[in-house]
């Protein structure tokens, strides 16, 4: 397993090219081109702002202003997470031609899905930054140093899950549909469109079982909230979880590697 991981490292140039290809190909033939990477999160922000400021203004807690921006801090990484997993679950089947006919480490494909969406996430960051400056939230720029740490942990977690989902989808095609519903559920089980403080105390332990809760709270802490960064222990927990998930995901993928070409 670890030999294969090392082996995978040799294919980093391929992963880089595949990510570039993915980004290139995605917007080929569209008028706005890669501007969609900016426009997509903007539109999402617009929709949530509309819902929470016009349709149900009472739903937002008063101390989180502007609320749309608070949500955006969670939605942006969530989009990366969910899009990665959805794409990864389909990646081996979409690339079945490669898996069956070319000798290369197949985990390259789900990893590419995650990384391509990481790039989209990074495109969204300047927009987030722009609005944070515009609205002058209380967050101090010093806390931004936490951002790469949180991103790195999320990356590890997402790749682990992506490998798991990709391999399982090959064996059971229904994982794809299951996943779409599971992600919707998980979205609402994560304090993204509500602050975790708003959840009843009896529910909070359950929310904390969700690794993405820690990530979302950490993003909000680093980017939105005032005061010092207090989510260090949350990060530690999710970092440990991510390492376990990654190893488990890779282990499973590695075990299934030889039957993948037959089953896709």
């Amino acid at each position: 397993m670890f030999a294969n991981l090392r082996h995978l490292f040799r294919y980093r140039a391929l992963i880089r090219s595949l990510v570039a290809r993915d980004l290139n190909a995605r917007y080929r033939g569209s008028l706005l081109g890669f501007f969609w990477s900016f426009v997509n999160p903007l539109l999402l922000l617009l929709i949530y702002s509309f819902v929470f400021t016009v349709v149900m203004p009472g739903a937002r807690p008063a101390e989180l202003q502007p609320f749309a921006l608070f949500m955006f801090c969670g939605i942006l990484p969530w989009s990366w997470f969910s899009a990665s997993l959805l794409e990864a679950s389909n990646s081996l089947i979409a690339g079945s031609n490669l898996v069956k006919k070319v000798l290369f480490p197949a985990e390259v494909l789900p990893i590419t899905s995650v990384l391509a969406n990481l790039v989209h996430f990074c495109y969204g960051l300047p927009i987030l930054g722009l609005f944070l400056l515009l609205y002058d939230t209380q967050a101090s720029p010093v806390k931004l140093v936490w951002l790469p740490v949180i991103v790195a942990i999320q990356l590890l977690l997402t790749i682990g899950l992506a490998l798991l989902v990709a391999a399982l989808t090959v064996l059971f095609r229904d994982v794809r549909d299951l996943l779409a519903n599971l992600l919707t559920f998980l979205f609402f089980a994560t304090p993204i469109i509500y602050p975790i403080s708003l959840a009843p105390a009896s529910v909070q332990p359950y929310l904390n079982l969700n690794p993405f809760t820690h990530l979302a709270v950490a993003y909000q802490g680093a980017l939105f909230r005032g005061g010092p960064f207090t989510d260090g222990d949350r990060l530690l927990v999710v970092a440990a979880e991510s390492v376990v998930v990654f190893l488990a995901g890779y282990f499973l993928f590695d075990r299934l590697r030889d039957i993948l070409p037959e089953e896709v």
Partner: protein
Amino acid sequence: MSGHAIEARDVRKIYRRYSRRRQFSTLKSALLSRSLLRDLRPDDAFEALGGVSFDLDTGRTLGVIGRNGSGKSTLLKLAAGIGKPTSGRITAHGRVSALIELGAGFHPEISGRENVFINGLMLGVPRREISRLFDEIVSFAELESFIDAPVKTYSSGMYMRLGFSVAIHVDPDVLLVDEVLAVGDEAFTHKCLDKFSELRRRGKTTVLVTHSLDLVERFCDEALWLDQGLVRAQGDPRRVIDEYRLDVAGVENAELAAMADQAETASGGAGIVEAGVKPGGPEDLSKAPEGRWGSREVEITRVDLGNAEGRPTHVFETGQGMRIRMGVQAHQVVTDFVFGVGIFDANGTCCYGTNTLIEGGIPESIQGAGEIEFVVDSLDLTPGTYKLDLAVHRANGAPYDYHRQLHVFRVTSHVADVGIYRPHHHWRFSGGVHVEGLR
């Protein structure tokens, strides 16, 4: 480098078929019926390879032949490392490049240029080396003016040329080729073969899976014949191919014999007349389909094909002798009769036709049972499938019993010559002309 480039030791590959799970094909149904474990158990196993062992020395070219489904492609994939044998071991030493499907993994939306890089990286070539080889790859594929267009605009030929070019330029130590030469135009095929020869000269090892026996004979140092997942023969290509040809002829013979039996039953029994055909026969014989008609005062009761020695067969080598034996039965004394034979190729072209009247035979009488033998000393036809017209009719053409293309035989040849007739011939050279290897 010396020693073995590929070693296979008792390689077995069993493909499992999950028919039950495929039927429902969902995790949900498996969970609901609590039969996940049972459904995960294969219902059926298909043995693609049943213990194949061979060694291929470095620098040799191996041709793998065998009928469809004999495990050739499976063997190649395992040698390439795509999938693992169920048991046994197969190793290829050095950098392996597998031409299993050309251009597998090209992305249609991006340019040929980007695809070349990605394809190369996928085959394990460092970026620097691809940059160095890039121009050569493109010019070999003859795609200089299209390389920056998206691959989706390529014709299938362009697509395959590019795929081939990348795969062959990665400088493999072991090249595995699966029947990819069947595609592409003549000129490109020649170019590919030249490239193979070049690799061979440079001491690279090649495994060629192909149905073209000719290619194996010309290009390979060794041949391996796979039959239902087992090695039937290995060694000198000429010998292996001959054995293979003989076996194929045997199988064809069995098939044709079965067809002959069918024809017998279809037309058997007096009085049965092909539907839609008048007892007098169709208006225009040349357009008539297979069938049997006639008034049956005289009947052809059985037809046997045999070789020069009379041994029954339906497959003949060009130039071999052939005997067509017909049993006849006359239900009354008949004095006006002609026996005829016609040989038609697969297109329905008459290759030869004759009868006893044309050749000056004067009928005396038929009474009761009898036998006619049409003996061909040398069947000088080109390879292909042929059908026979056999008939007994009156001198004015009114048939007693007409068998229209009911009997089939096949002609094989070591040479893929063309036409409908092969004059007995040989070549002679004199002066400064020297030719080797003519058969």
